[in-house]
């Protein structure tokens, strides 16, 4: 496809128009925004395909994942907002290569590749090998990077960088459409002869704001660096991110394990220096065919011990299929927290730490929803008063009752309805003398109660009024029964909710 004229088309006003063109198509004079009929007239050999939004998004997501080898913070950038929605004239105002892009926050990552230039050269070369043509730019502001990636002159190749403090100079020659403006604003600017960013910078700011709106100023400021515009909402410092590349792709399980070991050592060293530990670590492997494999290890407490982390990962990486080989591996401490002093290695072994390591291992293997802690909650309704809740995650706000009445050791959730074989008067203070539960008859010989538990009217899911009884049957089995009556006292049902020892 790269050696012949090619364009993607979209439908607008029941006309097919060009959405994107490749370099060869541009050489013969085709431009995005042209009608397909015109384009064919100019160049009959043009090959076209309809743009498939969903597939494009999926591919973009794949590329984004692939890009995470360069930085842990990647996101998909927006397309030119209103392209293809207005008139052809408006579209042409948004000149230059369009389409979506991918943001990389390279803060603290460039040294891994030997500098900004080397990183971008590597990035564009590798995407090219994958079969995509790409343009890349790095600058100190998001706006400038966006503008340069799309509009920079191709003199150095398909990438460029704006060194610190030189953003302004780099932006001056670029067209105004490099500012991520709406096509209407661009048309207005064009109509008065303002074509480049340099033209705008010469004008007083107040005039610009009055004539073209606050957005123009905002975009201008964010490109030049007067206001900051973070890519991710995370508050970040230098990321805890380590990587390894292989000159020969690796594939054996032992090699993957050894790679992980090396990366963990590097990561833990860096975490130790800063006195923090990781609660979520992401291990990513990049195959030669561009696909990736990713494993997550989470812990309940911050960890800074490569042996523990290795243990956690070792179960997760067993099933990794290396495919045609793995060329690169990265490890990222995604969520970090300060280590409390007793968790450092110096203190040595203590059983508390062993236990939390065990819990992490279990959580990673069976999922956080299956590793539970019994808790008391503030409620009178028995099934709400004692719950099992996940051990990881935010602690529940729980009021601990010190004194608890005689309660069963096992609770049936939900309570099971029983059949009172003999009819019990609704005003009676006795449980049914004989009841049937799970097809078995139980004759009550001892009973204690009732203990009345009123409904919690402030709860959305309300229960009826319950009268609880502890009963023992002829064989010695002890049950916790209750009778539930509704507000009108008309219907009453009997349930067994718990079993006593």
């Amino acid at each position, binding site marked *: 496809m790269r050696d012949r004229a090619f364009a993607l088309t979209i439908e607008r006003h029941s006309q097919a128009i060009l959405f994107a063109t490749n370099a060869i198509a541009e050489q013969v004079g085709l431009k995005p925004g042209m009608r397909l009929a015109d384009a064919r007239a100019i160049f009959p050999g043009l090959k076209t395909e309809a743009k498939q939004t969903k597939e494009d998004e999926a591919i973009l997501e794949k590329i984004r994942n692939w890009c995470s080898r360069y930085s842990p913070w990647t996101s998909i950038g927006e397309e030119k907002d209103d392209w293809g929605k207005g008139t052809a004239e408006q579209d042409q105002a948004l000149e230059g290569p369009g389409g979506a892009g991918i943001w990389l926050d390279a803060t603290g990552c460039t040294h891994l590749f030997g500098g900004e230039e080397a990183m971008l050269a590597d990035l564009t070369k590798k995407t090219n090998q994958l079969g995509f043509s790409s343009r890349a730019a790095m600058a100190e502001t998001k706006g400038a990077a966006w503008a340069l990636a799309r509009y920079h002159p191709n003199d150095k190749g398909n990438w460029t960088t704006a060194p610190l403090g030189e953003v302004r100079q780099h932006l001056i020659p670029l067209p105004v459409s490099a500012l991520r403006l709406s096509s209407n604003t661009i048309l207005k600017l064009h109509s008065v002869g303002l074509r480049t960013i340099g033209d705008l910078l010469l004008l007083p700011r107040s005039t610009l704001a009055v004539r073209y709106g606050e957005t123009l100023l905002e975009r201008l400021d964010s490109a030049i660096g007067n206001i900051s515009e973070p890519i991710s909402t995370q508050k970040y410092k230098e990321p805890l991110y380590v990587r390894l590349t292989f000159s020969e792709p690796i594939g054996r399980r032992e090699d993957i394990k050894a790679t992980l070991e090396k990366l963990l050592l590097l990561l833990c060293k860096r975490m130790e220096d800063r006195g923090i530990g990781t609660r979520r670590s992401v291990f990513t492997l990049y195959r030669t065919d561009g696909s990736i494999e990713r494993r997550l290890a989470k812990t309940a407490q911050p960890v800074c011990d490569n042996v523990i982390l290795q243990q956690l990962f070792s179960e997760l990486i067993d099933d990794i299929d290396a495919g045609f080989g793995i060329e690169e591996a990265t490890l990222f401490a995604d969520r970090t927290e300060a280590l409390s002093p007793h968790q450092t290695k110096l203190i040595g072994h203590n*059983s*508390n730490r*062993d*236990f*939390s*390591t*065990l*819990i992490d*291992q*279990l959580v990673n293997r*069976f999922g956080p929803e*299956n*590793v*539970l*802690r*019994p*808790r*008391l909650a503030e409620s009178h309704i*028995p099934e709400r*008063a*004692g*719950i*099992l809740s996940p*051990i990881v995650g935010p602690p529940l706000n729980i009021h601990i009752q010190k004194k*608890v*009445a*005689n*309660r*069963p*050791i*096992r*609770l*049936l*959730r939900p309570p099971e309805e029983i059949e009172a074989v003999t009819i019990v008067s609704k005003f009676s203070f006795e449980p049914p003398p004989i009841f049937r539960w799970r097809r078995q008859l139980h004759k009550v*010989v*001892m*009973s*204690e109660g009732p203990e009345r538990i009123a409904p919690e009217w402030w709860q959305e899911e309300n229960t009826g009024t319950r009268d609880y009884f*502890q*009963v*023992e049957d002829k*064989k*010695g*089995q*002890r049950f916790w029964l209750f009778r539930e009556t509704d507000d009108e006292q008309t219907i009453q049902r009997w349930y067994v909710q*718990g*079993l*006593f*020892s």
Partner: protein
Amino acid sequence: MTSRHNHSHPVISDLRARIAHIERGNRETQPETNTPTILKIGIQVLDSHLPDGGLTLGALHEVTTPKPADTAAATSFCLSLLSSLLRSYKGMALWCHNINMLDAGEVYPPGLIHHGIAPERLVILKLKRDEDVLWSMEEALRSKGPVCVLGEVAYASLTATRRLQLAAQYADLPALILRPGWQGEQNSAASTRWRITTQKSRQLGLAKTLNEPGNPCWQAELYRCRRGAPGIWKVEWHNETGDLSLAASVIDRPSKPFNTDVAG
């Protein structure tokens, strides 16, 4: 068995001690210690019946229930052991459930408190398969993290129990298996195997007057004991203190005091 050989030759008894020592699996670590750590059940007769003078800590113990109706009693038996363990040792306990075994319901936190167990000292693992439960138990023992490991399974093979027994010996931590006994007898490498049956509770004082359920009573049958003899006891669990005691004499007494005048 042990009592029968008490008068044998000193060489034999020395060898026997060595074998017992090797069986406990601490031949590398502490070659000269012969007294294993134990947990006193709290009933004099039972403790002295057991070969080590109590439940051996570094071992697997199995508690089975002859009928579904006995599950709560067996749970309570395990918890009363766990409770005294948590009283004497610092740390946490792990309880692994097979969720298909929860016919009798899940553990109820207020009930734990009633048994003298602080809920925050227990971690509960809900798993789908017996293999996962057994795996977790072994892993937990080997990590030496928890004070005690409990597992509720439908089935544990001889191999699995042997592994657990070894892991428990290695860690010197107790492992308890709670298993339904009505699904047929299984071979097991557990060092003690118990059968817990629920019994009529013992009413005392006011409970007797009001005919309310009293202190829970169970029949505890030690039907297999490594290096020891089987036995059967009636045990009472005291609601107020959480202690266990022997209840046999009380359970079999007629409900009314025997009138000597009429009998005489």
